[in-house]
């Protein structure tokens, strides 16, 4: 039995669960609006709009907390990708998820105090949190105040383009959510990561790490 390591401070856990809740509300209200029909029995349109607007505003505020938290605490370094040897490390992780996990192999990049994300998580989270989510809330705010949108650019309707980017981002986050929820079951036990994000403590999987020490130094 490995020891416990305090991996997720309270601000990260609160941010994470609030983010999760808001994303769920945004996805369901967004789908309801996107597929709105006079006869459909989804969320009532005006209610969906209100839910979507309020959740979007809160998501932006929550993102600012995340951004500042990463800027002023050590959490931000988890998102900094070391490009040297990154491709090899990523393939190693992909191989583990595709084959290794079925052969009961040890995770190549176990979670510990020195490393919170494996290389695949690192690149995914960085893209989602520093590209996709900002794109969603920037386009979302623009749709909230449509007078700021350029009505036409190179013959393309500015509103339709903004809406398209917003929906594209929302779709990306929906896909991310499905995969994230599943990969969160890939701990030693399926519930380990979920419990860790509630208590803040995670099994120190890196205690028995030996062969990956060299890679760890690159993170």
């Amino acid at each position, binding site marked *: 039995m490995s020891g416990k390591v305090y991996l997720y401070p309270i601000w990260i856990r609160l941010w994470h669960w609030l983010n999760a809740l808001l994303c769920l509300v945004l996805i369901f209200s967004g789908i309801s*609006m*996107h*597929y*709105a*029909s*006079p006869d*459909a029995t989804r969320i*009532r*349109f*005006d209610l969906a*709009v*209100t839910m979507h*607007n309020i959740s979007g505003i809160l998501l932006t505020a929550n993102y600012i907390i995340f951004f500042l938290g990463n800027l002023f605490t050590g959490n931000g370094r988890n998102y900094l990708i070391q490009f040297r040897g990154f491709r090899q490390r990523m393939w190693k992780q992909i191989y583990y*998820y595709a084959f290794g*996990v*079925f*052969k*009961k192999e040890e995770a190549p990049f176990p979670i510990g105090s020195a490393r919170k994300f494996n290389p695949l998580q690192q690149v995914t989270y960085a893209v989602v949190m520093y590209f996709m989510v900002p794109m969603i809330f920037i386009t979302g705010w623009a*749709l909230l105040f*449509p007078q700021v949108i350029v*009505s*036409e650019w190179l*013959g*393309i*309707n500015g*509103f*339709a383009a903004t*809406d398209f980017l917003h929906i594209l981002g929302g*779709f990306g986050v*929906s*896909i991310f959510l*499905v*995969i994230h929820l*599943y990969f969160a079951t890939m701990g030693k036990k399926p519930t380990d990561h979920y419990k860790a994000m509630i208590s803040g403590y995670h099994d120190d999987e890196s205690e028995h790490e030996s062969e990956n020490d060299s890679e760890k130094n690159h993170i």
Partner: protein
Amino acid sequence: MKLKTIVFLLALFAGMTLQAQDSIPPVKSNPANNHCFSCHGKRWYTYANKDSSQVIKHKMFKDLIIDTVAYYHNNHKSLACTDCHASDYNNLPHKSDLKLEPLLVCTDCHTDTDDVPPINFTGITEEYKKSVHATRKNTGVSCWSCHNPHSYNITTRSKENLNQVVAYDNSICLECHSGMGKFDILYGDPKSNLIAKHKWLPDPIKHFRNVRCIECHAEIRADVLVAHNIRPKEEAIHNCAQCHSTDSRLKYSLYKYQLAQERSEKGVLTSIISSRDFAIGTNPSPLLNLISLLVFACAIGGVAIHTIIRIMKK
């Protein structure tokens, strides 16, 4: 410092002048109307008493004053006054029985044409006769109540700024249905009852600026370009998805002319990308929806297969 101030003021003046030149095109008047407008274009008119040679000055009755600038920018600007009014009006003083002159209605001159989509004046007349404006007693409403023949500009067949179409058309309704200036309504005075009555909308002001009153308050008829069957308020649309959906009402009303024009000129797909209209939910692409569903299904399928193999190898 002084030089900078002078340059700034000159630039400001030049900008204002240019703007003024842009916004008010020059007026081309019809000399045949000068005689009429010499009295009806003014608040005060004068005439000489033939017997006493005394010049008499009178205030023109408000409803008989014609805004000449508006007239020469309206759809009827090419007409002479006597094209619609009896030629006897050229004689002064006007005979009193001329007041009994029957007024023309739109369809006395306007007939159905081959425009795409057609305006359909016959249909408009039929629809108008079913509307609250015609069926309720003593409303005193006629074509002219909304379409002032001396200032009206048809905006529906405009492919340019849809917001201007909306503002112009809504201002017609607000002339009667607002106890206050139309600009106050359009620019969001919270004290307005009209806004309070529409507060069920997530953002009433945004709606007032982007759609016309008739979008929700009139019954749409496919072969009529602009709905004229205004329904009682109880029958107004309260279901957001009537507009915010793929088969949006707006496609059959506000966007009808634009869509018909752009689709015939550019094709369906290009018209969606380049059209100036936009409302959430009206233009989802069936192809993108299908691709997104397939990608989502692949993600779920991948997770399911991975889970099954994990369970089997446990």
